[in-house]
């Protein structure tokens, strides 16, 4: 038979997360492929309907593992929109710091993650080591390294601990001085360039067809299509930052944008720490016990710019103590499912993990 069937995942070193790409290969060219998701399906949307508004705060970060704070943010934004709560000013700035730190950690992970598919494991080790320091900062702020449950409806759970600003700044300065090393190790590495330049293209038409967002979209269209700019939340309109863009999207471009965004995140956090006002950090959502909150009826969708693109929740409340329905838009849903089916064929099996990696696909947010 001409075709053979190969699997990329679920148990495969080239697969981040737990999903399976079924590839029909002829020679070494992928002829057909599709993603078999659902290995991480936990029925979040159902479980959330069974928990109170407050209980859900513990549940939602677990939807997306590398960058859980975006979940908390959109969930809080939805409740705030439904209940018409005004969030204290300081909380906005703290949220921004947290979100950008989370973006940094996710970008570091993804940027170092290129080490998996290309075999440059050193990048992976270095990046993970730096990411570890962000997690330590998170631990100090929120009490947990990965799942923070920190951004809650009405603000943030508690104020920043004293002196954390300096620690964050120290880390940022340190990271900023180290980033050029990453550039030398990864972006300017001739062997990495041999794999990534002019490889795994993502033209603008495909972006629009699939509905790809995030770095994929910005790298192809050349526009600042970033929710932080287009529909700002928190206080992104008040800080000064650039959105790196490009008009030719190959694997190298997307990696470069990721790298440049790290600088921007550092920039944003520094400004935020600088400009952050004092005051309260949490507004009351409703009276009485938090477990018996009732959120006014309504249907609202909120989205934030996660490291991989538009991350949104659609929340329906019928005025009860529990959400009536929550739908999650994973940022990598379009490229992960339709993209793999339509645009992975034609690539070589050597490039399949790289395709999966540089398209920014994260299986837990697809599966929910």
């Amino acid at each position, binding site marked *: 038979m001409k075709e053979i069937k190969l699997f990329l995942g679920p148990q495969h*070193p080239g697969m981040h997360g737990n999903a399976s790409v079924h590839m029909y290969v002829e020679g070494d060219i992928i002829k057909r492929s599709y993603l078999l998701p659902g290995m991480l399906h936990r029925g979040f949307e159902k479980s959330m309907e069974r928990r109170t508004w407050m209980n859900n705060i513990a549940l939602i970060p677990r939807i997306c593992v590398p960058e859980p704070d975006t979940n908390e943010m959109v969930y809080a934004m939805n409740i705030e929109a439904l209940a018409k709560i005004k969030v204290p000013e300081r909380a906005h700035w703290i949220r921004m710091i947290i979100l950008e730190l989370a973006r940094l950690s996710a970008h570091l992970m993804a940027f170092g993650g290129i080490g*998996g598919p*290309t*075999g440059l*494991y050193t990048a992976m080790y270095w990046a993970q080591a730096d990411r570890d320091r962000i997690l330590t900062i998170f631990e100090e702020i929120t009490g947990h390294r990965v799942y923070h449950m920190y951004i809650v409806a009405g603000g943030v759970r508690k104020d920043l601990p004293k002196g954390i600003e300096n620690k964050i700044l120290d880390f940022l300065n340190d990271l900023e001085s180290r980033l050029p090393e990453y550039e030398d*190790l990864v972006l300017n*590495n001739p*062997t990495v360039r041999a794999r990534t330049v002019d490889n795994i293209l993502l033209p603008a038409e495909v972006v629009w067809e699939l509905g790809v967002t995030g770095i994929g979209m910005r790298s192809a269209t050349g526009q600042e299509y970033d929710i932080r700019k287009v529909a700002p939340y928190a206080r992104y309109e008040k800080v000064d930052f650039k959105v790196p863009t490009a008009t030719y999207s190959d694997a190298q471009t997307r990696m470069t944008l990721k790298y440049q965004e790290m600088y921007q995140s550092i920039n944003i956090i520094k400004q935020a720490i600088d400009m952050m006002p004092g005051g309260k950090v949490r507004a009351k959502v409703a009276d009485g016990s938090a477990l018996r909150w009732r959120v006014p009826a309504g249907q609202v969708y909120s989205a934030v710019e996660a490291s991989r693109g538009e991350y949104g929740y659609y929340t329906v409340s019928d005025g009860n103590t529990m959400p009536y329905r929550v739908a999650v838009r994973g940022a990598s849903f379009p490229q992960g499912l339709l993209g793999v089916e339509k645009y992975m064929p034609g690539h070589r099996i050597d*490039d399949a993990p790289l395709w999966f990696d540089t398209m920014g696909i994260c299986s837990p947010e697809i599966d929910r």
Partner: protein
Amino acid sequence: MITGILTGFGILLFAFVWQTSLDGINRKIVGRFQKRIGPKWYQQFRDIFKALSKTGVTHGWVFDFGVMMALGGIMATVMFLPVVGYSAFPGMDNFFIFVYLLAVGMLGMAMSSVGSGNPLAGIGVMRALTQMVGYEVPFMIVILGIIFGHNTSSLSELAAIQQASGIMTWNLVKMPIGTVVAYISLLGMLGKKPFETFIAPAEIASGPMVEYGGKQLGMLMIMHEFATFIEVTLFVTLFLGGATTLFGFIAKYFVVYILASLISNALARFKIDQVIKFYYKVPITLAIVQALMVVFLGWGV
């Protein structure tokens, strides 16, 4: 004859102990490179013996037979190697024996892994063989120059010729282009990045090794240590003048191997056709230039 075979056993034992320890040290050095502490220096021994002690699976007789052929072929090759002046069969350490006897081991491993029925193993073997076409031809052309220049293909004689007057008679100095080419080929032989295509865990989940576990894996690990020993020793003997003392040998070997490993850890992996293109552009041209220089101009003889 019997003494020869016993010497061969001695070389085998030395090769195993030294290369396996060095692999452990190498893992430690790589760990430092990656900002870690790394394992103990004898970790590689533990891994090998652990693998041997496990109950693996077998996919039929060729799966086992190939492994034995691989290890047997490689051990036979090691027994021919001249190390620090010791040679099991003086005069018989012909360069071509190493190239082709090494191939027995490779063939055995390829056969066994494809015998597992896993397509990834097939792809891995395909890549390994394709890569072999890439690195072997420039390497052989350089060796042609050396053999032609010194008029002998015996490794111990080649080493002796180079030891004549210190570092200046090393082929490293006399044929620098060839040395560079051979070192690039050595990276390919050792399967170091960027020429790691046939292992490529992220792409084909470790290629030929995909189905091995238990004693078969342990034996292949031993085989890998021996193969590394042969390849690095060949380089040391052919270009760095071999060694007259154990310490000299170990020092040269260490430098060659650790340098390869460090290069490997700062680079990503090529795709297989990029490997071929790479080898057939620069190294093969340089190799031919070097060989022509030796053959027609008499430089470096």
